[in-house]
């Protein structure tokens, strides 16, 4: 119980830090983003009334005579109501609408790709670590190269080979544009078809990290006493590998998801850009290019909250697989 409370408290602190960071950064930056936004808003035919000005000022600072503390409190209030302001690049859609449209694409893509690369990487790493001294060792330097490859470059290469040269997969996009999004088979298969290369990019670039980490832990676990005991017990090698070595060696990898998830999300933002994937990463870059500060901040918040949430889930799962965390008191 204490473990869960500690974790929950930690993520609340992290969430507060992210919210505060989001509030502070624009106020520390040069220039006057509010005026830029309002000018853009006017260009798009939005009404530049005091209400619009105030909502931007809460997000970005500057302008009014309101104290920082009261701005901060109103800002927090807005965020918790889900009011993230108006997007000027997608006017008149509010930021929350833009995010709601693009987030599912990214969650599904990154979620599936990450799960896949985690599972395959862990399984291969366990095997390579257990069978060290065999030809499988050659996988180690190979994956080292893979994990040093920049995501976007790998994406470019995959596009060049499988989309441009061979024509097996589409060059870009998340679905065939002649279809209208919906839960029908045609649309889903189109989405899967379009998502294959982006997912492959994420899987290939992130699998090396899991594999290497798992392999090293497996090598350590193989020399633990409980493995020797299991051997003395006359258990089959496969059983020792899975039930004893892997079961123990996987713990640090699961605990390390927190560190890796940030990298994966970062990588997938750039990957989305290469494929013009309709996810939240592409939207973030569009927002940056269009100086759509409200959207930019909203997306940053949502990405952060999503990563924090995923980490919390992983931490809770961790408690299930490591009985030692469940110690009370």
């Amino acid at each position, binding site marked *: 119980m204490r473990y869960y409370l500690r974790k929950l408290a930690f993520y609340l602190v992290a969430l507060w830090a992210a919210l505060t960071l989001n509030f502070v950064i624009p106020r520390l930056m040069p220039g006057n983003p509010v005026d830029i936004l309002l000018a853009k808003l006017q260009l798009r035919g939005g009404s530049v009334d005091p209400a619009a000005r105030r909502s931007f000022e809460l997000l970005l600072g500057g302008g009014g005579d309101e104290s920082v503390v009261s701005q901060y409190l109103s800002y927090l209030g807005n965020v918790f109501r889900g009011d993230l302001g108006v997007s000027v690049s997608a006017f008149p859609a509010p930021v929350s609408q833009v995010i709601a449209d693009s987030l599912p694409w990214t969650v599904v893509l990154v979620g599936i790709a990450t799960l896949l690369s985690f599972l395959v990487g862990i399984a291969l790493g366990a095997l390579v670590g257990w069978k060290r001294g065999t030809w499988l060792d050659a996988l180690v330097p190979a994956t080292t190269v893979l994990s040093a490859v920049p995501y976007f470059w790998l994406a470019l290469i995959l596009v060049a080979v499988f989309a441009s040269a061979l024509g097996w997969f589409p060059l870009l996009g998340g679905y065939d544009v002649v279809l209208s999004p919906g839960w029908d088979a045609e649309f889903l298969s189109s989405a899967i078809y379009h998502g294959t290369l982006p997912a492959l990019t994420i899987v290939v670039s992130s699998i090396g990290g899991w594999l290497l980490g798992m392999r090293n832990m497996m090598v350590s676990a193989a020399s633990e006493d409980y493995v020797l005991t299991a051997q003395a*017990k006359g258990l089959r090698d496969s059983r020792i590998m899975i039930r004893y070595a892997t079961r123990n060696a996987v713990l640090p990898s699961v605990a390390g998801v927190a560190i890796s998830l940030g990298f994966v999300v970062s990588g997938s933002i750039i990957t989305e850009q290469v494929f013009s994937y309709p996810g939240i990463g592409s939207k973030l870059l569009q927002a940056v290019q269009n100086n759509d500060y409200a959207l930019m901040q909203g997306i940053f918040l949502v990405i952060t909250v999503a990563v924090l949430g995923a980490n919390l889930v992983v931490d809770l799962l961790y408690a299930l697989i490591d009985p030692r965390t469940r110690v009370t008191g």
Partner: protein
Amino acid sequence: MTNPSPVTAPSRTKDGRRAMLPRWSPKLGVGLGLIGAIALFGVVGPLVVGDPNAVRDIGLTAPGGEHWLGTTQTGQDVVAQIAFATRGSLRIGLLVGLMATVLSAVFGIVGSYAGGIVDELFSLFSNVMLVIPGLPLVIVIAGFVPAAQRGSWTIAVVLAITGWAASARVLRAQTLSLRNRDYVAAAKVAGEKTWRVITVEILPNLLPLLASQFVFAVVLAILSEAGLSFLGLGASNSSTLGTMLYYAQNGFALQREAWWWFVPPGLVIALFGCGLSLVNFSIDEIINPKLRDVPRRPGKVAEALRVTPAERGEDDAVLTVEDLSVVYQGDKPVHAVKGVSLTLRRGEILGLAGESGCGKTTLAYAVNRLHKPPAEVTSGAVTFHDRDGTDTDVLGLGPEELREFRWTKLSMVFQGAMNALSPVTSVAAQLDDVLTTHRPGMSRADRRARCVEVFELVGVDPARLGSFPHELSGGMRQRVMIAMALLLDPQVMIMDEPTTALDVVVQRGILLEILKFRDELGFAVLFITHDLPLLLEISDRIAVMRDGEVVELGTAQDLHLDPRHPYTRELLDSFPSLTGDRGGFIRGTEPALHDGGVR
């Protein structure tokens, strides 16, 4: 339970410094070669390749002739561009790597050394920074800074700020463990100033880790910067490999199949990152020596072994060890067990005594072929004489036969049961494993009943079957181990220092039970310990080992009253005497309590 290996750990003196340097290996060679070549290219290249920005009217020329790697859309030479871009990427990578390492050292080392609230705050801060995704944050910051004001320093600082947290966490964990080491405590007691303790005692020991974190930070920085530049959010005044890829992407290099424009820059990043990772492997091996390239395979039994299974002796032997030799192969082979011959009789307790490193554990492991390379059985024979009349040549068993032999005929109880049980699996599952493997015909209910039965035998409440090892006391864990060893009703049990880590009262209780089981169940015990007085108390016969040889073998009584070998006398004298008599640890003058006292 330490696997006795004569490969000694490097001392802190002369070899200590050598241990801080990576061992030469092909991986290290290739890694250093890649880094060296690319660094050289980045440093010297720009001096010889000419102007990277010179525009020619030969846009997108394929490689060949004057332009080895062709030209860009505007006819710029790709080689020249790469040379300058490599320099730019290396510069920012080093800069960020350095800053991030310093930041992580401050938060990781200083925090954990200071301890208390400072540590709590620093660690909380690092962890929060760790879970907030870096690149989105960098993108947002870069988005707020107008392009004209985005210099390479701005980018470097932002990358450093978002990239130090993972290292800080690793450094903190290591510092915490170093902080509690004896020599650090000694320095503190001696009144050394805090900064001196950190710089003199802690930092040098963290160097390999710091080096590996620095390498990691450089790789990360180069990759992040490349990503940022690729998105068009990099420093406006510098050209890096990421910038090159940005122009390639926007110049439709992909669509025009101008592979020479976008493949080489990424390749340089990948190869450089790969080189650094390979070097990191070697550094990791210093930090964790287990990772060194020792193949994990079963211990070898010499091919040309004289296999002459022993005759079944007239004295009802259950296990015969004949002329067994075990050698730790290496540059200087170490003969850990030298021609040992022993006979274990049915139902007897044979003590094996000797000081640490005398080869007794090596001998015990070799009997069950649990020895690991570089240990190798070079000569001898181990024969198991089954109750049913068959004899088994243990050293000659095939892998599958050996697996079936283990635990059914011969089980083991190891020292430190803390680690002999897997910490993440319930005790019941670890007992059940044995039954599912060796008794595939048993039903789930039967297996459960058998587990309950052995738990009751060793005096542990069967309700504890569902417990995990960390929920049991040391004594209970050892009883669980014994229960596990009893599961298949084996004929021989090898016990390696089974009670050494326990307090005297618990130890005594467990010993009494072992004696009781021996009488009730009739298995023979090979009992290994450095504690000769204890052996005198429980054993029927005792073998004294020294430097891999059995120097004396006799009944407990003979050994106690009339030790022949000077070493046996020495061992007996080395134990504290409570009564003034030699071996006075044993209360009274009766040498072996099992002749009457204990039962």
